[in-house]
C-alpha cells in the first residue's frame, strides 16, 4: 500500500490511505464518512458530487485524490465554518451560523428530494464568490453552461435555486 496522503478538508488535515488514483468522492464518502457530496453520474455530467477545491468547483467523482493533495477541499459540511472564518466570527457565534447560501436554501425551501442540492449549493457558493450580484441570465448560465456540465435537478427545483441564489446574494452583500 502506498504511503498515506494528507488531505486538507474543511479546514482540517486528514491522513488518508486510499490509493492516489481513487476519485476524491470515494475518499470523502467511504474513508472520511462525509455524506454531503453524492454519487450521481460518476462521469462529471450532473454535478451532485461537486466540492470546492481552492475555491473552485470540482467534480469529485472524477478528480483523483492525487489532484487535490496540497489544496483546500470544502464540502457542504465545511461551508458554515468557511463563512464564519470569512466574517471573523467567534467560536460560539460560528457554531450557530450557517453559510448564507445554506440559509437561503432553507428559507426558499429549495430541496425536494434534495439529492442534487449539495452540488447546487457548492455551485452557488462559487458563483457568488466570483460574482456577488449575479443577474438572472448569469445565474442560469452558471448552473448550465459552466464546464464540465450543467448541474441537473430531476425534481426540477431550478426556480427555487434561482430564488435562493438571489436571496443569498442579498444577505451576503448586506
Amino acid at each position: 500500500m502506498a504511503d498515506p496522503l494528507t488531505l486538507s478538508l474543511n479546514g482540517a488535515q486528514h491522513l488518508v490511505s486510499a490509493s492516489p488514483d481513487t476519485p476524491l468522492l470515494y475518499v470523502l464518502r467511504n474513508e472520511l464518512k462525509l455524506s454531503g457530496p453524492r454519487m450521481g453520474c460518476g462521469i462529471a455530467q450532473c454535478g451532485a458530487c461537486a466540492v470546492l477545491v481552492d475555491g473552485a468547483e470540482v467534480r469529485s467523482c472524477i478528480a483523483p485524490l492525487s489532484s487535490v493533495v496540497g489544496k483546500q477541499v470544502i464540502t457542504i459540511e465545511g461551508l458554515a465554518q468557511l463563512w464564519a472564518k470569512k466574517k471573523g466570527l467567534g467560536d460560539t457565534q460560528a457554531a450557530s451560523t450557517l453559510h448564507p447560501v445554506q440559509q437561503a436554501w432553507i428559507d426558499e425551501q429549495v430541496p425536494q428530494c434534495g439529492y442534487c442540492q449539495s452540488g447546487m449549493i457548492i455551485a452557488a457558493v462559487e458563483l457568488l464568490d466570483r460574482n456577488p450580484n449575479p443577474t438572472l441570465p448569469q445565474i442560469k448560465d452558471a448552473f448550465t453552461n459552466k464546464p464540465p456540465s450543467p448541474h441537473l435537478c430531476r425534481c426540477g427545483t431550478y426556480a427555487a435555486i434561482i430564488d435562493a441564489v438571489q436571496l443569498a446574494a442579498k444577505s451576503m452583500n448586506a
Partner: protein
Amino acid sequence: MVVKTDRPGSIAPTLTRRGFVKMGGALMVSFQFPALSAVAAEAPPGAATTHLVSWLEIRQDNTILVRTGRTEIGTGMSAYYAQVIAEELSVRPESITLLMGDTDRTPDGGYSAGLLSGAANLRKVGAYTYQALLGLAAEKLRVPVSALTVDDGVVSGTGKSLRYGQLVQDQQLDLKIPVSGVPARVDPTSWIRIAGLDGLIVLGDPPTKPVTQYKVVGKSHPMPGIPDKVTGKTQWSCDVTLPGMLHARMIRPATLGSTLISVGALDKTRFPTAQVITKQNLVAVLSPNEWEATSAARSVASATKWTEWSGLPGSENLTQTLRSYKWGAPSESRGKAADVNAALAHASKTISATYEQPYIKHAPIGPFVAVADVRGDGTTTVWTHSANSQGLRAQIANTLSVPIEKVVVRWLDHAGQFGRTTFGGDGAEGDAAILSQLAGKPVRVQWTLQDDLAWSASSPGWVEDITCSLDGRGCVTALHSGFYSPQSNDARIVGAILAGMPGIQPEAGYWIATEWPYDKIENRLEEAYGMPNLGADSSTIGMRGLIMRTPGQRQQNFALESLMNEAASCAGIDPIQFRLLHTTDQRLIDIIHATARAAAWEPRSSPHPGARRTGAGPVAGRGVAIMIRENSYWMGIAEVEVTPETGAVLVTKLTLGLDCGKIINPRQLERCMKSGVVMGVSEALKEEVVFDKGKITSTSWSRYKILTMAEMPEVKVVQLSRDDKGFGGGSEGANAVCPPAIAAAFFDATGVNARRIPLTPAYVTTLLKGQPAVRP
C-alpha cells in the same frame, strides 16, 4: 378498562388501558381488522402479527410519534402528513415526529405517491385519537366531552386544563382502530402481481375537524428534512455502512435477451481483495473497497462475453412497430360504442389525428443503490429508497425464498424516482439481497448511471388514434380514442430475473387513465390496448415498461388535449372558449378563468395571424391544456418561441393553474407545481430513450437529455383552494399538462401541428419542412 367512543357498529375503535407504569406513559394507536369484515377473512395468516406496531404514539412528554409506511419522495409528504394529523389532534406540526417507510416500524404500507389515501388514513387516525383523548380528558376532568375545547395539545373544560401528556401520564393505553386491506404479498392474481398496493385503509367515519376551523392545514409549514439536507447531516440510503460490508458493481449484458458465455478473469495482482460472484446471468464484482470494486468490475466486464440479442425494432422504428402489432381486444374500454360510431359516421365534419411519444425515463439524479444483509438463517434486512417498502419486502422474500416475517426493509431518503418503485420492484435491492445471500456478508450495490439508464424500466412509448366530429357551431358531437402501448407494470426485480430466481410475471395490458373533463361531450368511446414488453412475445425480455409520474393520463391527456386544440382551430374558436363550450364543471371553469387572467390571455383562434414556418428569427405562439386528476383541476398556458431556421423551441413562459381542493401547504405546492413544469417542459422538448436492435444506447446525460436551468421558462402559478372539496393531488399533473399546451403553442406559432413529442430541433426541422401548414 374500555372506553367506548361514540361510534356504533362493528368498526368502533376500542381504547384499552393495559396497565399503569411509573414512567413513560403513552397512548399507542394501532389497528385491528374488524371481526366481521370480508376483507379480514381474506387476510393471510400472520397479517396481524407482522404489523403489530403503533400508528401513532402520544407520550407523557407531549411528543407525538407518527408512523407511516408511506415515504417522502421529494414532493412534501413529510410536511403534508404531519400537518394533516396535527390538525386533527389540534397540535403544532412541529410536535410531531414522522417515522416513514420501515416495514418493521410502520403499520400501514402502501405506495408513497398516494397522498390522498395516505392523508385520508392519517386524518382518520388523528380523528379517532382525538376522540379518545377527549374521552380520557372528560373522565379525568369530570366534565362532559361536549364541554371540552383543545388548543395546541391542551384540553380545557370548566376552568381546568390538561396537556395530552398528562392524560396518558403513568399509563399504557391502547387505542385500536378498524382497518381493511391486505398486507403486501406476491400475488399472481393481482394486476401488478403484488397485492396490497394501497396498504391498510382506516375504516369508519370519525368526526373530523371542520375545514373552516383549520389552523395548520393551509399554512406553509416548512419541510422538515431540509436543514439536514443542506448541511450534510441527512443519512441517505447510499450512506448505510455495515461491519464487514462489501461494495458491489454489477456486470450486465446488453439486455435481458443476452445470456452469459464466460466471465472475464479477475486480475488478483491488481485487485487483491476483489471477488467475482456469478449466478446464472447475474454477475458482480465485490470488494471491501468501493474503488477496487469499481475498477475491477470495469476490467472484468471488458473481458466478459454474452450472447447477442436483437429483438428490438430500434427507437426510430417504434411507431411503425406499434402500428403493425396485432392488437387484440382493448384491455379497457369505456363509453358508448354504438352511439359514437353512428355519430361519427353521420357527421358533416370530423377531425382525426394520431399522436405519439417515445419511451422516456424516470432518470433520477442518483442511480439505484441498496444495502442488504442476509443472514444464514434467512433473516434479511434491506436498506432502500423504494417508494413501496412493503411491496419490496414481499418481492425480496419471494426471490430469496424466505418467510416474509424474516424480511425487514428500512427506508431512507434518496433521489426522487417519479413512480418507478411504486410497485415495490426494480432497483438494486434485489442485486444486494441475492449477492448478500451468496457472499454471506452485507453487500452494498451501487448502480452506475449507465446501469440505471439501460436497466431500470422505462415509461413505454405509445401511439393514440383519436377522432372527433364537430357540429355546425363547432361543438364536438362525438369522440373516439384508441390508445396503444406496451404494458407499464413490469415491477420485476432485475437481479432475480438475471439470477433465475423466483420472481413475478407482469401482465400485458393497459388502462384508461383519463378522468373525463368534458361532460358536454356525451358520445365518447375510449379504448386502451396493451401489449407485452417491446421486443418480447411475453413479458420476459425486451424493454421493460413501468409507470411514471401521472401514469397513463400523461400520455392520454396529450392526445385528448391536442385533439381539442386542433378541433378549436378547425372551428375557428379560441381554445379556451372551446373548452368552456364543452364543460359545465364549475371547478374546471373557475380554474380556466383564473389561469387565463393570470396569463393575460386575449381570445383569438389559433394559429396566430403572424404564424410562419420559415424565415429569420423566432416566432411566438401560445397554447392551452387542461386536465382533471385525483380531485385536482389543472390548466396550463404555454408561451413559446420557435426559430424555424434551427428548429429550436424555447418555452418562454408557463402559467399553471390548480384547484386541488383544500390546499395543505401553499408554498410547498407552489414548489411542486413549478418543478412539475420543469419535467413537463423536459418531456415536451427533450426526452427520448434511444435504442438500437439490441439495447438502450442513451445511457448518459449527454444522450438522455433532461431540461437544464437555462432552458427553464418563467413559471407563474395560480392556486385555488376550496374548503368543501377535500384534498387533491398536487405533485403529479403538471408534467402532463405542459406537453399538449406546448405542442399547441408550437402550432400557434408555425401553423404546423406537432403530433409527436419531444420537439427536438431535428424533429421540428422535419416538421416545418414537411407537413402542410394550416393557413391562419
